[in-house]
Each structure stands twice: as C-alpha cells, then as structure tokens.
C-alpha cells in the first residue's frame, strides 16, 4: 500500500525522499566508523528542506542579492520582486484577503511576541488573556512578560490527562474581561488537533479576537485564515520545509492598522524627524531593518514545493502513516504514549517505564534515529501530567512505514539494553 503511494505530483515516497538531500546523506556518529542512514523523526522540531529550497536561497546569493525597497538598480528591483513575490505566495497559501496582512518575522516566537508587545500594549490590569495549558512556551512566556508589564491576567483552558482541551469550561472562562484568546492549533507534544473553530466562534460572539499558534498545523494541513476567521495566525518557515530565520504573522487588516509599531528602524517609517516619525503602510510598518530576503525567497520555493505535492495527498499519506505509527507504538511493552487515541497529528510523545527519555533518545541515535527528548518547550503541560521529560517521534510525508518499524524495533531493544546492562 504505502510502497505504492503516489503523491499528487506523480512521485512515490521514495522519489520524494530523493528531493531531500539530507535523507540521502549518511550520518557520522561520534566514534563510529561507518556512516549510517538517517531516520529523521524530528520534523516537529524542524523540517528537512527539499533541494529546490536550498537552491533558491543559494541562487539568490549567487545572482540576485541586493537590499530591497530602496534600491533603484536592477538587482534591487529583482530582489524586491522576489521578496514581495513570496509575500503573495504566502497570501495565497493561507488564503489571506490582503497581501499586506502577511508580515515576515524571524519565527513563530517573534510573530507572537509582536502581537503581545504591539496589540497587547494597551492592555491593563482589568484585561484577561485566555490561553491553554498545552501552549508551547512561545505562546505563554510573551504573555507572562506582558502581564508583568501591564498587569493583565492570564487564564488557561485546562487539559485532560489525554492531552485534550476541556472545552466545556470555555463558556465560563470567556468573560467580558477577556481581551484575547491564544490557542495552539496542533499541540507539539500531544499531536492534538484543537477545535479552534469552536473557540473562534465562541470568542467572536463576544467580540474577542483569537490568535492561533499554527507552528505545527501549517506544515500538515491546508490553512484558510478567512474560513477559520482567526484574527492572528503565527507560523514558521523552518517547520514548513523552508529556511530558518523566517516567521510569518498573519493579522486581520483592521487590527494591524490600529496596532503601534513593534520595532523601529529603516523601512518601517514614512518620514523621520528628530522630533518624531510617522509610519509606513502595512505590512512594512512591522518590518524594520534589512529583512532576510534570501530566506524569504527560499520560503517561496518551499510553498511551491508543498503546493505541487498538494495538501490533499500530504494529509492522506500522513494520516495513514500516523495511524500505522499509533498502532505500532501502542503495541510496545512498557511504553506509554501521550495524547488522543483517536484523530491526531503525527506527533508521538512517549515514555518508557525502565529508562529516561534522554537515554532512549541517545540509544536510538546510535541507529541513526533522530527523536527528541525533553520538555518540548511545554513545561506546564508536562507538569500537569506529572512527567518531567518525554521522548517524541514526529512524522512528515517523507517518512515511511519501514522507518516506523525500525523505530519500534529499536525502542524495544533500548528497553532490553538498559535492563540487561546491569
């Protein structure tokens, strides 16, 4: 079945893997003579990049590099067209109404900090921000910093032991003091796909804007911000098969228009006097200084790549693989898997009764299997579940069933090694 899987662009999984140079490279382990194959199961941390993305960025520096917006020379025109062309691609990718609703930042974290610092600047002690207990630190700490500065209060939608939001509490938690709701779309520890439609519609019925942390959802499902009707949507290029150093903030025009600037500097101004300045139009008001044009060009290529594969076929394949992984992993003795048992994303956090997640990850690394171990930047959720650390395997469309079989085999071997080692 999987072997026969064909993506919308006519390629098999094996052919897709050939698009990713790192999946063709051998891994040299510490003190290990023979390089081995990489089994990359850490896409939720950062995705691998197709050759076209790497080439787009390199080509930019080889042939097109210039500073943008202010140059009247041919290179500058080309670079500006590339940069603004990628903005158009992002607009289409998430179906934003206007191109100027797309702001380039460094990463999801910065996108959220921008909203906290600019949109949140007018908050005061009477305002409440409603988050969830499963937020990544990126969608928690910026609000804690804001709360320290403005006195606004943070409230949280609780999570169940199964890693799902207790949405029955929502009506009670949303009050006329709630100034913003911030929710992660797909949890990076549980793989939960949150019912943001319900949250958005309830919040909007009380005129409360909603920010969605789309770092984990944007790589794995088609996003339509107009249909979702969210007010802000934050995500990262590097998790979406694009270069590092590029984040995106989508915001509704009417909110962005009213927000004060975030950083000051070149490009974000209309006119500067020693006594004060006026701001440029959207989106540039929020893009101070020389942007990462090469990275943005690379991200444009990543979007092209994803569109060619099509989310229809990506989702179908990834869902199949996720279901296979869920079944395979839950069959392993001494292993506990976190998160929902039904519909979920391909992110599997797990613990083993007999060994610590670090040791599990280190053992798997010996076989070239890259999984993550730690608190996954979601300490509050971990605390709630009374776990200090988990191992996590996360999937992408370039993974295969046989990689999952290999993972299962080595998880079992890890348990044996640590038990017999004594």
């Amino acid at each position: 079945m999987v072997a026969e899987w064909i993506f919308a662009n006519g390629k098999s999984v094996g052919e897709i893997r050939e698009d990713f140079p790192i999946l063709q490279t051998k891994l040299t382990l510490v003190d290990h003579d023979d390089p081995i194959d990489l089994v990359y199961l850490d896409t939720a941390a950062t995705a691998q990049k197709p050759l076209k993305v790497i080439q787009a960025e390199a080509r930019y520096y080889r042939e097109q590099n210039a500073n943008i917006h202010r140059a009247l020379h041919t290179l500058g025109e080309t670079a500006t067209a590339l940069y603004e062309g990628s903005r158009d691609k992002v607009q289409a990718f998430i179906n934003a109404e206007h191109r100027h609703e797309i702001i380039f930042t460094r990463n999801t974290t910065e996108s959220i900090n921008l909203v906290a610092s600019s949109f949140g600047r007018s908050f005061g002690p009477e305002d409440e921000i409603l988050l969830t207990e499963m937020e990544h630190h990126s969608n928690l700490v910026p609000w804690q910093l804001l709360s320290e500065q403005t006195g606004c209060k943070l409230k949280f939608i609780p999570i169940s032991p199964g890693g799902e939001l207790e949405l029955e509490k929502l009506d009670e938690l949303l009050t006329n003091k709630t100034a913003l709701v911030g929710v992660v779309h797909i949890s990076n520890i549980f793989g939960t796909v949150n019912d943001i439609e319900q949250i958005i519609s309830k919040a909007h019925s009380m005129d409360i804007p909603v920010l969605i942390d789309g770092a984990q959802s944007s790589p794995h499902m088609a996003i339509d911000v107009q249909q979702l009707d969210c007010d802000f949507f934050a995500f990262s290029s590097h998790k979406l098969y694009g270069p590092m150093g590029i984040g995106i903030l989508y915001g509704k025009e009417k909110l962005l228009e009213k927000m004060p600037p975030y950083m000051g500097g070149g490009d974000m101004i209309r006119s500067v006097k020693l006594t004060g300045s006026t701001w440029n139009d959207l989106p540039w008001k929020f893009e101070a200084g020389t942007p990462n044009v090469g990275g943005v060009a690379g991200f444009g290529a990543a979007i092209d790549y994803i569109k060619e594969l099509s989310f229809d076929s990506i989702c179908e394949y990834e869902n199949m693989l996720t279901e296979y992984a869920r079944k395979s992993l839950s069959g392993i003795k001494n292993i506990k898997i976190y998160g929902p048992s039904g519909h979920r994303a391909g992110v599997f956090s797990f613990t083993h009764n007999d060994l610590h997640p670090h040791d599990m990850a280190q053992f798997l690394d010996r076989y070239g299997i890259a999984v993550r171990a730690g608190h996954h930047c979601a300490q509050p959720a971990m605390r709630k579940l009374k776990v200090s650390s988990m191992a996590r395997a996360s999937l992408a469309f370039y993974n295969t069933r046989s990689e999952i079989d290999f993972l299962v085999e080595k998880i079992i071997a890890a348990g044996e090694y640590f038990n017999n080692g004594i």
Partner: protein
Amino acid sequence: MAFDDLYQEIILDHAKHPRNKENLDFISDDEVHENPTCGDSVKLAVDFSQDGKLERVRFDGDGCAISTSSASMMTEIVEGKSKEEVLKMIKSFILIMRNESESSLDDFGDLIALEGVIKYPLRVKCATLPWHALEDLLA
C-alpha cells in the same frame, strides 16, 4: 563502541540503584536546579559534621542515567571532605567534563566512568547538573 563508553556498567548500576537518593519534598522548589534544555532537575540536602566536613549529601530529582549516576557517585565521593576541598573538586570536574581542562577524571574514583560523556556536549550538562547544584549550595 562509543555508546557503550557512554553507558558503562557502573553508570547503569548507579542509575538503577542511586545511592543517597531520598525524597526531599521538604526542600522548596526555589532551590531546585533545572537543566533548561531538558527539564531535568535535582535537589540536594547536605549534613555537615561538627568539624565542618560534608557528612552526608542526599539528592532527589528526576534525571537520565547520566545525571542520576553522576549525582549518586558525587554524593559518595564528597562524603567526609571539607567544603573547600569539595568546591575545588567541583570546579575541576566541571572543567574536565567541558573539555576545558588538561586533567582527567583519574582522581574521581568511579566517576571516571563519565569520561565517555565528554564527547557528547549536550549530555555534559546532564553530568554536571548535580555538581552545579552542590556548588550553589556550598557557595
């Protein structure tokens, strides 16, 4: 193989049967040492003898085989030593683990088993976590 260097018999033994590990719930969370990269944590309690030596060091916390065994062996080796001696030892241990020292772990008894960790910079933090905690406590 490097992997077996990392997880030597003695490390696994201390990890499974840590010495001087006790429930230290009476110690406030503020005094917990955490590794920000992974969330591992350690708490320490030190009893001093009348002549100011470290009589008994107990630890509690949640950690991997490397950090647990390092804590366990640490509590054994510092027993009966003076504060100054121990502080010197800690400095030296941390530098060796960070590969910033000419010395080796030869004088550290069983802890020599942790030398394999030096090749794994991200794990060095696991091995040194309890030592940083003890340093803070004594300082």
